[in-house]
């Protein structure tokens, strides 16, 4: 089985290296095919491993030593257990799909080969992240995905906005990584190891305050990667990258790494329920917060990104409340339908020549039937309509909130579910229904390549039927995660809740259709009453948070840096050194006239010297006598 482990892990790396060999040459189809093929290999290996793990085994290997100093010992160790294998499956499925899809999507791009190098490298990093058997290995993957995310967001490096977004993403993630790093340090100095098994065995013996700090710092790391408030702004900006990237990295895999971390570290978070409640509360807040921003946004990809953010909030609610398996389940389901949604959006973008404003589209269902169906179904799944994947995973989270008696969280999530349905179908309605507003802009949309649609189909299927695997999945992960079943004891309550939620959601969908699927929709010009309302502006400007960050952090930092250089470094530190040197030199300049070359004054200096010496002699001897007497 170790062989499959290594194949699953390194096949993407090989693909990446292969692609990077050609990264400077013009587009070559084979690069995409090889990379996709290798990813498929990886997927197959993962699948084999899955079946093996389902047989009740796990695979744990240690490839080689990485860092060993003092008592610290960090190997390149990999583990395939019930949790990681689920993640491996998600990662390899989505990335295989995205790879194949990208062959079509990046067809006309000059950086085709480079794209695949980065993309496969990302998958490799992600695999390292999920398969590592220790926190340091996790951190390698953690940073690796950050790097690839940087490279892919800024893939079109000639665009200022893209590179800016890339740097923003990297730096914000770094802020969180610091927290993660500190968490790792705490773990090491308190348990003496970074291996999961050792740490989790040891963590119960630690003081609770230490565990709390560990939990907090690790979660700070998770907040960055999963773009939780207040480190969320990068995710929306990251949409500057090519759409397959958004599908893979910023929807399905990388952003869920934070959730994975919390799930993985469940023995730690189990000990600190207070931190868990904080996580859950933050998750609930982010769910609502992000959904609210999605309501008014006019950028197709950003809407989906906010939706992702919102769904991450859901996952954190589940993880925070101790329902780790639920979180992981939603993670999986979400990966499928959200990736699908993004890829669909990619098709639309292609059709619309990179136009992102849904108000400028409309009526596309006629020309893009396949995409229309896929996106609609994905949105249905996202909204959580029975029997699609979202229903099983999302409703479960609501139930968890209810069962754990966190009614505020429950209410927030319920409202968010409605909002989710509304903005999802606002988008669908604006893109595919109503009048063909794009004609105003002289665009001639066309459907994407057929193989791209075919490539997307596995995701469609999974988005539809993933819920059916719920019990299988539960059986699998209960070996590793707390196997709590969340049942609402009263059947009546259960049915009222479930049906009520469904009705609420459907109502939201219908409202969205009513408002946006008619022919009266026009491109907003900023004059309508709604657009000038305070709430709209607040949401439109993302609660002014990017602006605040710019004003409070970026600009002062730049200004402070300038002051540090020009005022402190040059004018104080360096000037002091120069002043000492100049002072010495000036003293020389100012006193050299003592040597004026005149013999008389030279003689006088000698006599003065003598007189001074004599005076001192007399003074001293008088003093000596006085003291002596």
């Amino acid at each position, binding site marked *: 089985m170790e062989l499959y482990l290594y194949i699953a892990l390194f096949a993407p790396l090989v693909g990446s290296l292969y692609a990077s060999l050609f990264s400077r040459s013009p587009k070559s189809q084979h690069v995409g095919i090889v990379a996709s093929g290798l990813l498929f290999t990886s997927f197959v290996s993962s699948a084999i491993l899955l079946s093996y793990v389902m047989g009740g085994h796990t695979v744990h290997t240690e490839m080689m030593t990485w860092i060993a100093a003092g008592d610290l010992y960090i190997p390149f160790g990999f583990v395939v257990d019930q949790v990681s294998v689920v993640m491996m499956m998600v990662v390899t499925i989505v990335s295989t799909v995205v790879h194949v899809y990208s062959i079509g999507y990046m067809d006309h791009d000059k950086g085709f080969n480079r794209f695949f190098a980065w993309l496969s490298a990302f998958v490799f990093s992600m695999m390292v992240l999920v398969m590592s058997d220790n926190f340091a290995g996790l951190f390698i993957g953690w940073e690796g995905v950050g790097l690839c995310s940087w490279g892919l967001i800024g893939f079109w490096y000639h665009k200022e906005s893209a590179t800016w977004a890339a740097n923003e993403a990297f730096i914000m993630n770094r802020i969180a990584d610091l927290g993660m790093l500190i968490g790792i340090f705490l773990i090491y100095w308190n348990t003496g190891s970074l291996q999961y098994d050792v740490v989790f065995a040891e963590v119960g013996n630690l003081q609770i305050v230490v565990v709390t700090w560990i939990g907090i710092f690790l979660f700070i790391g998770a907040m960055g990667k999963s773009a939780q408030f207040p480190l969320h702004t990068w995710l929306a900006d990251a949409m500057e990258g090519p759409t397959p990237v958004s599908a893979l990295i910023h929807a399905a895999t990388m952003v869920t790494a934070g959730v994975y971390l919390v799930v993985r570290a469940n023995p730690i978070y189990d000990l600190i329920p207070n931190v868990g409640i904080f996580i859950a509360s933050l998750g609930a807040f982010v769910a609502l917060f992000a959904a609210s921003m999605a309501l008014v946004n006019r950028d197709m990809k950003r809407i989906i990104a906010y939706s992702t953010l919102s769904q991450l909030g859901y996952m954190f609610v589940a993880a925070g409340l101790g329902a780790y398996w639920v979180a992981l389940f939603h993670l999986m389901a979400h990966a499928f339908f959200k990736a699908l949604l993004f890829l669909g959006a990619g098709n639309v973008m292609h059709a619309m020549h990179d136009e992102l404003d849904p108000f400028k589209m409309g009526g596309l269902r006629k020309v893009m039937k396949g995409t229309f169906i896929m996106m609609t179904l994905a949105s249905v799944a996202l909204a959580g309509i029975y029997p699609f994947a979202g229903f099983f995973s999302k409703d479960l989270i609501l139930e968890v909130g209810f069962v754990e008696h966190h009614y505020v969280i429950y209410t927030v999530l319920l409202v968010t579910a409605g909002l989710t349905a509304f903005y999802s179908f606002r988008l669908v309605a604006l893109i595919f229904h109503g009048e063909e507003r794009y004609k105003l802009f002289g665009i001639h949309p066309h459907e994407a390549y057929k193989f791209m649609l075919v490539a997307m189909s596995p995701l469609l299927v999974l988005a539809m039927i993933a819920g059916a695997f719920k019990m299988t999945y539960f059986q699998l992960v209960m070996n590793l995660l707390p196997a709590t079943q969340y049942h609402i004891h009263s059947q009546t309550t259960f049915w009222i809740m479930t049906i009520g939620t469904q009705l609420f959601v459907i109502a939201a969908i219908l409202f969205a259709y009513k408002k946006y699927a008619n022919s009266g929709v026009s491109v907003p010009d900023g004059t309508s009453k709604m657009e000038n309302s305070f709430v709209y502006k607040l949401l439109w400007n993302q609660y002014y948070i990017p602006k605040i960050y710019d004003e409070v952090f970026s600009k002062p930092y730049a200004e402070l840096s300038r002051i540090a250089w020009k005022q402190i470094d040059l004018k104080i530190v360096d000037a002091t050194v120069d002043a000492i040197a100049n002072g010495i030199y000036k003293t020389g300049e100012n006193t050299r006239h003592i*040597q*004026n*070359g*005149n013999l*008389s004054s030279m*003689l006088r200096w000698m*006599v003065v010297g003598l007189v001074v010496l004599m005076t001192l002699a007399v003074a001293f001897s008088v003093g000596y006598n006085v003291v002596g007497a």
Partner: protein
Amino acid sequence: MEITLTHYLVLSSILFAIGLIGVMRRKNLLMLFFATEILLNATNVAFAAISHYIGDLSGQMFAFFIIAVAASEVAIGLGLLIVWYKRTGKIDLDQMNSMRG
């Protein structure tokens, strides 16, 4: 009044002081040389006197040597002075400052 050693020493000191003042004040090279001679001879007076009062000859020896040295000093000094005078036509100290700083 008996002349004691102190008187000699005071005389010597006064002479020395005169010499010092001369060295400091004189701008004429020749007068400067005179002043240095006064300095040396002031010492001679003291040496001779001390030698006499403590009954030891080395003081007088010292004085003789000083006289000899002073004589050769004058020889050198006058030589330099003459050359200087021939080159510049002056023996004024204030003219002598081509090197400074």
